[in-house]
C-alpha cells in the first residue's frame, strides 16, 4: 500500500554549482555539475509552472551562487509569473546596485545573505575569500528596496565565540529576520567535521545567548536558529520528512528529496526534462523509497516519535553508519548512537582555537573546490 502523498510547499532550485567562494561547510555535493549541463531558462520556467500547479508556494533560489547565472532576472520573472514567492539565497557576490535594481524589478521577494562570521578574517578563513565588506554593502542596498532581508550566520566551532559581534551587526543592519544556523554535516562540511563540530560547552553557551538575543530583538527582528542534532536526543525531521514538503532540483534538473540524496547508493533520480514534476513527486521510486513508514526499521517502526521526526535523516544514516536504511545514528535510541558519541568525545577532548583578527588559524581545511 502506498503512503498518502502530501502537497509539496517549497521548491529548492539549485540553479548552478558555480560559485566564487570556497566555504568549508558548503552543502553542495563533492561532485559538482558543470556549466554546460545546467538547465536552460525555458526549462526552469516550465518547472516553476509545474511546481505551482502541484501546490508549491515558494521557490528558494540557491546554488552554488545564483548570481552566477546571467539569466537570474528572467528566472525570477518566470517564477513570479507562475505564482511563486521567490527567495534568493546568496553570498552577495558578484552584485552591484544596478543588478540588484534588475532583480527587484523582476520581483524577487526575499534575499538571504549568508555570513561566515562578523569580520573579514572569518570570510578569509572559512570561505577563502575576502567578501565581508561586499556583504555589508549588499545588505544596505537591499534595505532601499521593499524586499525582505535575512542575515544568515553560519555558525560552528571556530566562530561561536563571535556571536556577540554577529548580534551587534544584526542590530546595526536591522533585517526582518536573522538566522543563526549551525553547520549541517553533509557534503564539504562532513569532510571538515572535526574542525566544525562545537564542544558541548560552546553549544550550551550559544543556546543561552541566542535565547537572550531572541528576547532582546522581539518585535524588531525575527530570530531563528538551527542546532546541530549530533547533540540532540532525537534527530531533526529532515526536510519535514522524505517526500512530504520539499523537493530540490539540481542544476542539471534531477529532482531530489533532499540536498544530500545524490550521495545515497542505488538511487536513480528522475530529470525534469523527461517527466512532469507531478509524476515525479507522486510516483518516482526515489521519492517513494523513504516516504511514510513502510521502510522503517526498529526501533523507529514501533516508536511514538516516528510521525514527528520520520526516523531522522537518511543521508546522515549513510554518512555515519554506512547504511541509509537504519535509524538516524544521532537518535539516542539508535543502535549506532555509539558512533556519534565517540565523535563527540573526540571533539570535546580537542582544544578549541578561536579565530583571532588578522591571523589565520592553523587548521587544515578542505575548501570547497570550483573544479567541475
Amino acid at each position, binding site marked *: 500500500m502506498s503512503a498518502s502523498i502530501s502537497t509539496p510547499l517549497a521548491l529548492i532550485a539549485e540553479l548552478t554549482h558555480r560559485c566564487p567562494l570556497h566555504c568549508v561547510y558548503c552543502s553542495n555535493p563533492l561532485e559538482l555539475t558543470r556549466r554546460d549541463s545546467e538547465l536552460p531558462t525555458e526549462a526552469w520556467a516550465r518547472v516553476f509552472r509545474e511546481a505551482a500547479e502541484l501546490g508549491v*508556494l515558494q521557490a528558494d533560489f540557491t546554488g552554488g551562487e545564483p548570481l552566477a547565472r546571467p539569466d537570474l532576472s528572467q528566472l525570477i520573472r518566470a517564477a513570479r509569473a507562475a505564482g511563486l*514567492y521567490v527567495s534568493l539565497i546568496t553570498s552577495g557576490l558578484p552584485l552591484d546596485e544596478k543588478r540588484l535594481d534588475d532583480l527587484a524589478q523582476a520581483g524577487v521577494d*526575499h534575499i*538571504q545573505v549568508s555570513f561566515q562570521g562578523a569580520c573579514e578574517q572569518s570570510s578569509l578563513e572559512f570561505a577563502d575569500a575576502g567578501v565581508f565588506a561586499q556583504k555589508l554593502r549588499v545588505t544596505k542596498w537591499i534595505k532601499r528596496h521593499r524586499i*525582505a532581508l535575512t542575515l544568515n550566520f553560519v555558525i560552528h566551532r571556530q566562530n561561536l565565540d563571535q556571536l556577540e559581534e554577529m548580534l551587534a551587526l544584526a542590530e546595526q543592519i536591522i533585517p526582518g529576520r536573522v538566522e543563526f544556523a549551525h553547520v549541517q554535516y553533509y557534503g564539504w562540511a562532513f569532510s571538515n567535521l572535526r574542525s566544525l563540530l562545537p564542544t558541548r560547552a560552546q553549544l550550551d553557551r550559544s543556546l543561552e545567548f541566542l535565547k537572550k538575543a531572541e528576547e532582546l530583538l522581539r*518585535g524588531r527582528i525575527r530570530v*531563528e536558529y538551527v542546532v546541530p542534532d549530533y547533540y540532540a536526543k532525537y534527530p531533526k525531521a529532515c526536510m519535514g520528512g522524505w517526500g512530504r514538503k520539499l523537493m530540490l532540483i539540481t542544476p542539471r534538473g534531477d529532482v531530489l528529496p533532499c540536498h544530500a540524496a545524490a550521495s545515497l547508493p542505488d538511487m536513480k533520480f528522475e530529470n525534469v526534462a523527461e517527466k512532469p514534476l507531478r509524476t515525479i513527486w507522486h510516483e518516482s521510486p526515489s521519492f517513494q523509497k523513504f516516504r511514510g513508514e513502510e521502510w522503517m526499521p526498529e526501533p523507529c517502526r514501533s516508536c511514538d516519535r516516528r510521525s514527528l521526526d520520520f526516523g531522522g535523516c537518511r543521508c546522515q544514516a549513510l554518512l555515519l553508519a554506512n547504511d541509509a536504511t537504519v535509524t538516524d545514528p544521532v537518535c539516542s535510541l539508535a543502535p549506532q548512537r555509539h558512533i556519534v558519541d565517540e565523535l563527540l568525545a573526540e571533539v570535546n577532548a580537542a582544544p578549541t582555537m578561536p579565530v583571532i583578527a588578522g591571523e589565520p588559524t592553523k587548521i587544515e581545511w578542505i575548501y570547497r573546490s570550483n573544479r567541475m
Partner: protein
Amino acid sequence: MAPETTSRPRLAPGCRLNERASQPRVLLMPERALRLNGPSLEIVERCDGTHTVQQIVSELQKLYSQAEPQKVEQDILGYLALLNEKRALDFE
C-alpha cells in the same frame, strides 16, 4: 506590541498575499506561509499603509455586525500584534 489606533499597518517588505486565484489565500513571507480564513483575510487586505487601525476596526465591525463589536476590536488588535511580532507587519 499593541498598535496605536491611529497608525497605519502595512505588510512588511517581502510579505504579500499569494496571487494564484486557484489556491487558498495565504500570507507569504520568508520561509513561511500563513493560511488566511475569512476575517484574517479581510484584515490583511486592509494592511496597505492607507487604512488606520481605527478604520480597519470599524469596517470589520460593519462586516461582522452580528458579532460583539468589542470582541471584534480585540481580535483585530491581537492579530495585528501577532503579525507584527512575526515581522510580517509594520505600523506606519
